[in-house]
């Protein structure tokens, strides 16, 4: 615990509170008596890709949902692009966990992507040709343009994930928050998703993803945020993604094989 305390006090990251796409201060979230996330600070760097990693039940998804206002925290502040979350909701796009919805819902792919345009359409606005053209363009970016009329239950897991990503692209945001975008998808989908995310980064957008595959962290992301209810460490992959920090976050739960695999990392 001593080690955690000192890491919490690590020097402030480059971007200050005012400019960070997502800054969280003192966030505590609890479902029952035990907090799922405890007093977490997070400062996301703009125009970069950040992975949130940690063991199962460490509060990764909870952190994301609290940052989006889906879950009400016990305490803490969330600032998005220098202003309050409520003022900036339109500038955030969200990709929930694929398993969080019922894919038997009676709708088709194009309709799901159009959901991302809800703000523009408003309550009674009709879906026009240009809305559909934009949705189609988002589908093309994830390689799903041939599936626009398909019932969503007929898609494979990877295809469903790409449709969710297309829906987030339709939101046309500054900050993209993704919850386990690579969970249970095929290799082709993983490749497609990462190239879309890197394109977003190249366009100056900020990407934050809950990630579970430690072996791809260094390839895919610029920064990592290690969490196990409390923040363990935060910073560039090269500095923070170390065997020591991983042990601190995962404790005994990190399989020896995984540690071996990661032994190339700086200690």
């Amino acid at each position: 615990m001593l080690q955690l305390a000192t890491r919490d006090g690590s020097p402030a990251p480059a971007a200050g509170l005012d400019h960070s796409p997502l800054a969280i201060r003192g966030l505590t979230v609890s479902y029952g008596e035990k907090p799922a996330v405890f007093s977490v600070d997070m400062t996301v760097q703009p125009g970069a890709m950040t992975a949130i990693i940690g063991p199962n039940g460490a509060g990764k998804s909870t952190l994301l949902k609290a940052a989006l206002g889906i879950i009400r925290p016990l305490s803490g502040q969330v600032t998005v692009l220098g202003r309050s979350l409520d003022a900036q909701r339109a500038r955030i796009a969200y990709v929930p966990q694929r398993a969080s919805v019922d894919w038997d819902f009676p709708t088709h792919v194009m309709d799901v992507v159009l959901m991302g345009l809800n703000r523009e359409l408003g309550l009674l606005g009709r879906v026009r040709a240009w809305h559909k053209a934009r949705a189609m363009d988002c589908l093309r970016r994830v390689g799903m343009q041939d599936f626009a009329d398909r019932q969503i239950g007929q898609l494979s897991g990877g295809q469903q994930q790409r449709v969710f990503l297309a829906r987030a692209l339709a939101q046309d945001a500054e900050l993209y928050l993704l919850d386990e975008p690579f969970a249970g998808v095929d290799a082709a989908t993983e490749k497609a998703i990462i190239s879309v995310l890197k394109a977003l980064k190249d366009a100056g957008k900020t990407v934050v993803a809950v990630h579970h595959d430690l072996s791809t962290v260094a390839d895919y992301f610029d920064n990592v945020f290690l969490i196990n209810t409390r923040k363990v460490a935060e910073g560039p992959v090269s500095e923070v993604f170390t065997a020591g920090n991983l042990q601190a976050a995962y404790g005994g739960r990190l399989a020896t094989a995984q540690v071996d695999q990661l032994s190339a990392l700086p200690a």
Partner: protein
Amino acid sequence: MSGAEFVPLSLTPLLIGICAAVACALPGNFLVLRRQALIGDAISHVVLPGIVVAFLLTGVISAWPMMLGAAGAAVIAVILIEAVRRLGRIEPGAAMGVVFTAMFAFGVLLLEQTDTSSVHLDVEHALYGNLESLIWLDATGWASLMDPEALRGLPSELPRMALTLLAVCLFTWLFWRPLKISTFDEGFAGTVGIATAPLGLALVIVAAVAAVAAFDAVGSIIVIAMFICPPAAARMMTNRLERQVAWSVVFAVAAAVSGYVLAGYGPLWLGGADAISAAGMIATMSGVILAVTARFGPCRTRTGAPVQG
């Protein structure tokens, strides 16, 4: 059947049955997809003690006190369900089951123990309603529809149920897109500017209003059946929400009409003497429709597993 017989005796019960069926089926589509179908069932049960208490307080059977009593009971039920769920830390379905059966039983007990024999308020009425008795005695034929004098004698349930249906339609039309998005993916809905919690509450309130209005006219059996059967049957006809809702309306109307006709004439055709409960028959027909679509509907397989085509 001639207009002189049909208009006074069958037109109004039929119209009331159709309005009640459609008013419940529309919100039912969303409740079923949200796995909240039990709420319709719960509401139709919990309003009974509210209606009885309203009657005991006012001493008359009239629409507004009963509506208020029903609404009060619904609010108490929602609070109780939340309390049981949180304090007992059990799943919402179980909490609902405990609360609505207890409240319905309390309502039955109140009915039994108090003197309601002078008025048409009893357990049978609560279950089956009194659809057959909602006749229009002032009518003499189709021409009466244009006669203001005769129209004044319409049973008050008809305009009330029609107005409820109109309100339900308006709500569904106005909030179509938010309802659809938040039913599919509630977490995401919040990020595209939809106030999911108030909308979910509004849906339950609209369902409650439909349930209370329908309960008054046709009893709780129809309410329970219409919240679930037409939407569930419609889901097996199509994979598009728009078409599902349209199908659910078709099925609700079909169940109301066929149920009413079969209840009135079915026993006679079979050689019996008396008609049977229209509300019971309408609910039965909605079940038959559900069974048929479950067997022959084009979209009855869960598509969670990949399907060819």
